[in-house]
């Protein structure tokens, strides 16, 4: 961590201003070398300076430079932020200049990693920052921000406190067996309490997973017979919404073709590139393969040609998608219609044609309706914000279920307590508590025992 790192801190190509951030002990020195204006090395901390970025006397951009000295910075290191004009060329040129003068291009999340390693953030806070970096729409950003404020910590803490009450009650019965005034917690009571706790944790996990899939993008499959207009609908969607963020790389590369953002809802279009090249999904890879894709998708757009009657393949696709979140798009609505709408009355239907944009607008609205962000936002955000947290929460849930199971099998309370404690400790891992005396503190707070 002795070197100085730099990266573009704002989203590429969006907004009027881009920020290039440097962190590390040489960041002020490097910025000063390429800056005409005030001597930045003498600038007090947390000050902004006007000037130009020059690369060996070649002016690059007119900028504002913020100087923040360690340790009161995000990474606890010297940090410089260069505000330059947005636009990919200028931004890249400024970044290049910075790199040419001794900074190293930061790896994804490296600023946060430094913040974490320098003790600026706790584990769950830094995970939340990673989430902000990765988040693709505004709603997720809110969630991530809430987590930053310790939202996850708060939820898990509250949940653990409830569990702790149960644990300390069992413990006090064990450590003070002869206190007849202290209620002996019965197996029925433990069972009741566990059932509630399991339900609650289950809800937290389910909501979190729902959010996870939203954050990752809604896997969307556009499906239909040849020549019904799949490509034109896809292209129109892409055309209609300019906010194609990126072709997603990495693990999803071979699955997802493109990412469309509709009013903050990311749609990942499941790869139909092969289909378009070979003209037709159904012909080339068969019904079975298309069914596999259907099962993987979160949203299916079934494209029909309104100008023709439903074929056997249309019928089969409609049937297979009946229980999935799906929209039936009746394309070519400008031509004479041959489909009996009455037979599709239980489905979400949108009519489109390439002549007018109204149908596409309807399609977008339908998608928003199905994945109602407003509704989700009003849920009280009781979810965990990343995969690690969800996975630990699931382990905790398993332990609680095991405890309930042992209880039903009439195992003694000290054995049941092992699994409850296990869940309690797992949940502690989510918020970075590896060791604590909480149980004992709670025991003495709540029960009157002693010689």
């Amino acid at each position: 961590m002795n070197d100085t790192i730099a990266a573009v801190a704002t989203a590429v190509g969006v907004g009027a201003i881009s920020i290039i951030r440097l962190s590390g002990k040489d960041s002020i020195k490097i910025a000063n070398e390429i800056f005409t204006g005030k001597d930045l090395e003498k600038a007090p901390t947390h000050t902004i300076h006007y000037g130009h970025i020059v690369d060996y006397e070649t002016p690059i951009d007119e900028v504002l430079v913020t100087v923040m000295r360690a340790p009161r910075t995000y990474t606890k290191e010297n940090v410089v932020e260069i505000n330059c004009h947005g636009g990919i060329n200028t931004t890249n040129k400024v970044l290049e200049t910075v790199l040419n003068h001794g900074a190293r291009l930061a790896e994804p999340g490296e600023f946060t990693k430094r913040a974490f390693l320098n003790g600026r953030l706790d584990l769950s806070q830094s995970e939340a920052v990673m989430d902000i970096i990765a988040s693709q729409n505004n709603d997720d950003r809110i969630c991530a921000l809430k987590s930053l404020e310790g939202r996850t910590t708060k939820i898990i803490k509250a949940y653990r406190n409830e569990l702790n009450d149960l644990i300390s009650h069992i413990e006090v019965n064990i450590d003070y067996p002869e206190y007849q005034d202290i209620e002996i917690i019965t197996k029925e009571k433990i069972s009741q309490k566990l059932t509630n706790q399991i339900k609650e944790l289950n809800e937290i996990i389910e909501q979190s997973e729902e959010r996870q899939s939203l954050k990752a993008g809604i896997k969307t499959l556009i499906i239909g017979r040849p020549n019904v207009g799949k490509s034109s609908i896809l292209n129109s969607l892409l055309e209609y919404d300019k906010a194609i963020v990126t072709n997603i790389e990495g693990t999803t590369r071979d699955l997802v073709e493109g990412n469309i953002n509709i009013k903050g809802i990311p749609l990942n279009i499941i790869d139909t590139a092969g289909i378009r090249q070979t003209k037709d999904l159904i012909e080339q890879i068969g019904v079975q393969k298309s069914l596999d894709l259907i099962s993987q998708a979160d949203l299916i757009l079934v494209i029909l040609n309104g100008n023709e009657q439903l074929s056997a393949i249309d019928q089969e696709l409609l049937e297979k998608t009946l229980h999935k979140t799906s929209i039936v798009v009746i394309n070519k609505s400008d031509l004479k219609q041959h489909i009996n709408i009455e037979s599709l009355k239980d489905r979400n239907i949108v009519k489109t044609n390439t002549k007018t944009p109204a149908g596409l607008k309807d399609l977008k609205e339908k998608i928003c309706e199905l994945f109602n962000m407003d509704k989700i936002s009003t849920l009280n955000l009781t979810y965990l914000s990343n995969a690690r947290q969800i996975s630990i929460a699931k382990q905790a849930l398993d332990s609680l279920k095991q405890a309930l199971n042992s209880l039903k099998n009439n195992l003694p309370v000290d054995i049941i307590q092992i699994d409850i404690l296990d869940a309690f400790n797992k949940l502690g891992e989510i918020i970075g508590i590896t060791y604590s005396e909480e149980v004992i503190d709670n025991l003495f707070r709540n029960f009157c025992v002693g010689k």
Partner: protein
Amino acid sequence: MKYEVIVVGGGHAGCEASLACARKKHKTLLLTGNIKNIADMPCNPSIGGPAKGIVVREIDALGGEMGRNADKAALQIKMLNTKKGPAVQALRAQADKIVYPKEMLKTLQSTPNLEIKEGMVEHLDIKDNKIRGVILQDGTKITSDIVILTTGTYLKSQILTGCDKYFGGPHGEKNSKFLSDDLKKNGFKILRLKTGTPPRIKKDSIDFTQAQLETGDNICYTFSFDKKAYYDYTKQEPCYLIYTNEKTHNIIKENLSKSSMYGGYVEGVGPRYCPSIEDKVVRFSDKERHQLFLEPESIYYDDIYLQGFSTSMPHDIQEQMVHSLPGLQNATILKYAYAIEYDAIDPRQLKASLETKIIENLFTAGQINGTSGYEEAAGQGIIAGINAALKIEHKEPLILKRNEAYIGVLIDDLTTKGIKDPYRLLTSRAEYRLLLRHDNADLRLRKYGYDVGLITEKQYQDLLEKKENIASLEEKLKNTYITPQKDINKYLEHVNTSAIKDRISLYDLLKRPEIEINNIQKFITFNYPEDVIEQVTINAKYGGYIEKAQREARKMLDLEQKQIPDNIEYSKIPNIASEAKEKLEQIRPRTLRQAAMISGVNPSDIAILMVYLKKGAKND
């Protein structure tokens, strides 16, 4: 005068420490303020209980004396938590306060290499951070290789009742005025702690008909694995249960400012688990009554210990309080309750061997380390004694791990986390309590006792035989099957367990919660001692959980493997938070596992420390 080991203080820690050293054939001197008070029980007349009872068995397994001595002194004995599972069961005995010290003194006096002398130690003879001996009040200098301090509550102790405060130890004994200053001068951080004891009531002034009878178990239990019945279990002394009432509470509330605690006369930190009755009334004001036990102290005198009624009220208020209790309207108080304040050292200044980090060859054990309880003291005492002897023998110290013994949990907690209030063992302090059972203390620890030389060949052979028996019975049950025959299934249904469809081994059948060993004996005859059958039953029924606990323990041991070099300079490690640096510098954990347990040291600090240690290894 030259000894190999001097033990200062003849309480429960001192007795075990001096016995361990002397039995390991090192010339040992036990110094006490008063020989008559050796192994005295100044507070409750009982030994054992949850967690503590397991410690007593651990001491016995290692070759200590407390278990056997408690068996000799037992007035009443009870197995606690029998319905709550194998991990938390424990023995608790009412012990005769005359017999216990008398028997212990007999043992001490008959142990070769052990000399007992009266004398108050005033100073430690230290040169170049190494102990050389002690200096008594009268100026006598006694030299030794090792000194073990087991001074209990006697360091600068003050007795408090109401606004009355005077220097002195329990039982009107002299206290030690200068020793803690000596320790402070040598760099020890001194803590001020407080504890208390309830009044003693004259037995025949109590109307027991108004109290609820509490009897012992009608079984001959013993703490010691030697299982010698020293007491007659058919003649156990009863205890009684009574409750405080509104009148008691009103007296306390009206006179609260007169108590030492609430009048602001106490500076020491009292134990949370041992609140005074005024504490209980104030903190739990919604409770209409608090439970009190009337416990016999001895069959040789008349005192009844009023458990649950410890107070620092002045004598006249104590009279009123006691007389408000049912059956005690006309009670005579023989000894008034008092609070006691005393000095202790911050136990984070100790190594896990209980040798101090500051002064070489100086060990401390018991209440001086901030614990409370006879059992906690004795447990530390035997470890300090063993390690003092091992040090003389130039051998590695015996350090019990958290998954091996409650004593290990106790010492690890003390030396890595330190204390805020007097430390008492609780089962909830042990992460692996299913492994740390009272029934398997011998299987866990006898080998250690044998290796250090405190367990005899005969005792060790008995242990090996027990292990063989366990293995052979398990083998037998695993290799004997029953098949779904009509009469077998009929029997199974008769004992409320489901019928079998396929053949099943008796071992698997024993795993069923409804099945006990006597049900198994319906299908097979064998003749094994009860403790062998008990082990096999527990292993069968809870095997999955035991394995899980062992897995968890292994994870912990992995971190334990990651040693931190003694000469590490935390100030030179970049990026560790300054609070963590300070804590690490102060405690100087031996391993990453210990470092991770320190409050104020965050996972990020551990990550950095881990990286730093790896780097260091590469550079070397």
